[in-house]
């Protein structure tokens, strides 16, 4: 019996697709950096720099902004080539509510699906029912209610949205502070207030209760959207997130490989300013960036999601 046959036999004996294994992969990514890549070559640079996973997409968010039009799931052939190029997990994005794009991504073997506001939403009312899938999902949020709605739909990992493709960390900070601040307030609430709080923020009661008991989200929570420097990554870690997504910040900078490595090292040593200073030296120009304050509301991606 060869290895593949052996594994298949065992799969029948073991349980796949459980919450434990879906959330578990996110737990293994903690303290790490997930990087947006658009080619197998970039994926290899990311892996070499120490990324814990890559997000395979056709255009990084900064270019999606410039291109305009409808942003969709990437070409499955391109994603496959990235899967073949690296040993670390590969994630890919589907549009909000586009469960067929999600089915396609699952069938080609991606390790995590990001139901992402960076792409143009396919449904203005409903997200994907993520319980239907073997493959786990990560979803964006701006506040606790949104995070718990996504977890209620089956998300096994959360990321605060920030404002993708800007290189401006201000929204990532706002969203992380909002979610983590709401959890701190929740912990102070007497139990009789939980139902009304759940109603007000539009979140499932049982998850509000669980979050209070745990003192944190029931799933891993990364920061995303606007992180461009090692200091940005460490800032988000010190605020209390579990890890970092970097989109345009690496491959839109002047020298991606050393910047990628520096952000990885800053995420590990986020509490050590001496190491942060050292890894921040001589990285060249960060991505140019757009101040979020200069964006009109309809240009902000974070407002997508319901």
């Amino acid at each position, binding site marked *: 019996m060869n290895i593949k046959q052996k594994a298949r036999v*065992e799969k029948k004996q073991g349980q796949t697709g459980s919450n434990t*294994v879906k959330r*578990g992969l996110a*737990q293994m990514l903690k303290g*790490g950096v997930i990087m947006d890549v658009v080619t197998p070559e970039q994926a290899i640079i990311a892996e070499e720099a120490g990324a*814990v996973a890559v997000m395979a997409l056709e255009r990084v968010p900064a270019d999606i902004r410039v291109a305009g039009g409808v942003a969709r799931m990437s070409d499955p052939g391109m994603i496959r080539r990235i899967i073949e190029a690296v*040993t670390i997990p590969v994630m890919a994005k589907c549009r909000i509510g586009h469960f067929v794009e999600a089915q396609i991504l699952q069938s080609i073997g991606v390790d995590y699906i990001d139901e992402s506001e960076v792409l143009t939403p396919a449904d203005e009312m409903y997200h994907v029912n993520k319980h239907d899938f073997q493959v786990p999902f990560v979803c964006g949020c701006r506040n606790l209610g949104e995070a718990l709605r996504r977890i209620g739909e089956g998300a096994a990992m959360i990321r605060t949205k920030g404002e993708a493709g800007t290189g401006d960390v201000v929204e990532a900070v706002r969203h992380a502070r909002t979610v983590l601040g709401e959890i701190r307030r929740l912990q102070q609430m007497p139990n009789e207030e939980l139902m009304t709080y759940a109603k007000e923020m539009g979140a499932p009661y049982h998850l509000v209760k669980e979050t209070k008991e745990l003192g944190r989200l029931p799933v891993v929570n990364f920061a995303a959207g606007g992180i461009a420097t090692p200091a940005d990554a460490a800032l988000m870690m010190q605020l209390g997130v579990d890890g970092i997504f970097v989109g345009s910040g690496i491959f839109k900078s002047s020298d991606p490989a050393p910047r990628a*490595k520096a952000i990885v090292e800053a995420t590990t040593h986020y509490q050590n300013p001496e190491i942060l200073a050292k890894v921040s030296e001589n990285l060249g120009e960060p991505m140019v960036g757009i101040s979020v304050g200069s964006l009109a509301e309809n240009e902000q991606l974070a407002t997508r999601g319901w």
Partner: protein
Amino acid sequence: MKIGVLSLQGDFIEHAQMLSELGVDPVAVRLPEDLRELEGLIIPGGESTTIGKLLIAFHLLEPLRKFAIQKPVWGTCAGMILLAKDVGTDQPLLSLMDIKVQRNAFGRQADSFEAYLHVPVLKNGETQPFPAVFIRAPRLISVKNDAVVIAELADGTAVAAQQGKWLATAFHPELTRDTRFHQYFLKLINV
């Protein structure tokens, strides 16, 4: 008693919490000086390539090898890969245990699974199965010298090994409520 948990990347907090539950002080190890005064070390789950690169960047590879010659070390999943002498790919390793390991041996994330294992070395190991969580997990292809297999899947695939005071598991006891593997590691320290 102070036990270190390598805290460069991965699920080190889960290991620290389990040690705390057992009344042990967990110490986060990020730099060589953090190894002082420790009685043992756990290398958590995570991405073995990431952890390996950070071991090199922060000059931990040699200090950890020296530490492991004297003290018990346990690696879970990525930790097992880092402890192995042979993983078939070119990546930074501690190369301590005489085990041959295959990475991502069961497939991609959709193939990650839970299974109950008989682990005779654990307390009540013969009668009470251990809940094992396999996430993009490695497996043992072979063991050499005095390394021995201590747990297998129902089909005979080897998934945990011990070599003296070194322990390696392809799965994640830290993701369960069952503390018996952690207790077994503490026993190795107290021998």
